[in-house]
């Protein structure tokens, strides 16, 4: 269990993390999603007691990190795969950490086998590829068999096999009842692994909800309709209670209706159609809209109000972004 209360970090004039409140619960993978520079890493560093919050607090298992009896037994973290002395072998790196928490040498061998670094364990870690470095970082995180694990952008720079391995590992760890907190700037990655989502943008928590809820709320779909008889068709569609938006390109976006229903209405009236397409915006777009809202908000005003959380209130919500192609029948919500 990780709990942040009004967690704030200020670097000079910039608020890196702004009164963040969230809870990361055990037994599931919680995704920590935000664009680069949103405050994900700063938040994680504060969780680990590396950076001191300007105000507010964050606890792991109910206490500040530095109060944990044996930190590696309770929290395992992969912040930066390269946070390793390159002149030290993988084995010795893990041994140094094991000794710092009084863990037996057998743990070092166990986690080396777990991450599959056995053949290079005695080599200097400076020569490791990014993927090997990530595995070493994960081995370090699992060294003390902790109940909480945190990974900062774990799939960055990994090959497909490595990505799959990490995804499965995170799910397995959560399945064992551990608290799994993983950051990413890729919605698509989170959609595949996370059960719960905490979205951060410019230091503010923009969403904190179950993945399913986020998908339901944010995967906006509508039907694009073109018809030469639109002036007659539109009132008929509206009479069914469906929301209609006239587009500049003479098409119409119909919300809350299925293509078949629209086709039935048009057919019954003898009004023919030139297009009838179901458009489902991807979660990636939903995420971009959510965080773009916080960006716009900050660029426009500076009165410490909270960013608009409700997606529907963000200007342009419900419409695909101008330069972004909507994916038809997006597969993102697996």
């Amino acid at each position: 269990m990780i709990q942040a209360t009004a967690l704030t970090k200020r670097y000079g004039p910039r608020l890196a993390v702004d009164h963040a409140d969230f809870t990361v619960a055990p037994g599931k993978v919680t995704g920590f999603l935000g664009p680069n520079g949103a405050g994900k890493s700063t938040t994680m560093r504060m969780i680990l007691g590396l950076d001191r919050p300007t105000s507010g607090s964050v606890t792991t298992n109910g206490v500040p990190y530095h109060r944990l009896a044996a930190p590696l037994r309770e929290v395992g973290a992969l912040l930066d795969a390269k946070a390793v002395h390159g002149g030290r072998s993988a084995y010795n790196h893990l041994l140094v950490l094991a000794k710092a928490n009084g863990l037996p040498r057998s743990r070092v061998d166990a986690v080396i086998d777990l991450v599959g670094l056995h053949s290079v364990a005695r080599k200097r870690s400076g020569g490791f590829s990014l993927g090997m470095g990530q595995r070493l970082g994960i081995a370090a995180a699992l060294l003390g068999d902790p109940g909480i694990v945190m990974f900062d952008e774990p799939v960055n720079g990994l090959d497909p096999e490595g990505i799959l391995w990490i995804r499965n590992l995170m799910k397995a760890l959560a399945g064992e009842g551990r608290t799994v907190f993983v950051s990413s700037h890729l919605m698509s990655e989170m959609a595949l692994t996370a059960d719960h989502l905490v979205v951060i943008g410019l230091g503010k928590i923009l969403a904190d909800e179950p993945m399913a809820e986020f998908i339901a709320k944010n995967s906006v779909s509508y039907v694009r309709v073109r018809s030469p008889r639109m002036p007659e068709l539109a009132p008929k569609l509206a009479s069914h209670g469906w929301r209609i938006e006239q587009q500049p390109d003479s098409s119409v976006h119909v919300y809350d209706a299925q293509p078949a229903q629209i086709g039935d209405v048009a057919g019954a009236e003898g009004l023919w159609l030139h297009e009838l397409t179901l458009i489902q915006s991807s979660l990636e777009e939903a995420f971009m809209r959510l965080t773009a809202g916080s960006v716009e908000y900050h660029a426009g005003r500076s009165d410490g109000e909270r960013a608009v959380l409700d997606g529907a209130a963000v200007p342009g919500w419900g419409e695909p972004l101008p330069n972004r192609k909507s994916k038809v029948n997006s597969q993102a919500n697996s």
Partner: protein
Amino acid sequence: MSATTTRAVHLSAPIRSVTFREAMDSEFAKIRSVRSTYWTLLICVLVTVGISLLIAAVTSANWDSIGQTERATMDMSAVVAGVYFGVLVTGVLGVLVVSSEYSTGMMRTSLTAFPRRSMLFLAKAIVLTLVVLLLGVVIAFASYAVASPFYTKHGIDLSLSQTANLRALLAVPVYLTLVALMGLGLGYLLRHTAAAISSLVGLFFVVPIITNFLPGTAGKDVNKIVPSNAGSAMMITHATAVGDTPPLSPVGGFVALLVWAAVLIVPAFLLFRHRDA
């Protein structure tokens, strides 16, 4: 490895609170497991013993051309003359022990494993102290073994049964250690290898040149307490130095150097406890 299970590696031992002992164990494991430690120690031995030997051999070969006043200053400090350069190497070791952790990001990993910063700081300082003290003793006696015969054959009394001689020889590990701790302090303060090493070199080789030119007796007094002169004073047994201003007493030199180390270590400690890592 595609079959992902973590079940097999569960740890059943009860959670035991970490203590200072774990910090020490970890720091020893760190200093033992990088090559730079061994290189630095080896270079320190070679530089100190080698230069001591070289100076002794050259001095002995030119003994006849050395004046009476200068001969009178020949004591243990001449036998271990190489330590003048050796301290820089242990100072660099002190810097590296810290700055390498900052430059690689290892410090964040270290603090994640052991977040009690005061203990971690102390453990690192103690491990460095123990390693350099041991190295210093080896260097002192090795230098004595190879260099002292060149002086004793000219009638200089370097017998270790003389308390003053033994004290001067044992000042070598103390001097090396205090400078290593100065390096450690600089490493924490600057967190950057090149900056910390440059500062250390400046303190030992540039500051004395400047203070040497300070006018008046106040200038001479300042010149006495710069780290290199304070350190040298610890190894002198005959207080009859060349020139009109005698150096600090051995104890005075020790105290001056202790103050130097404290001036760097104390702010380093306070900053380390509070700074973002």
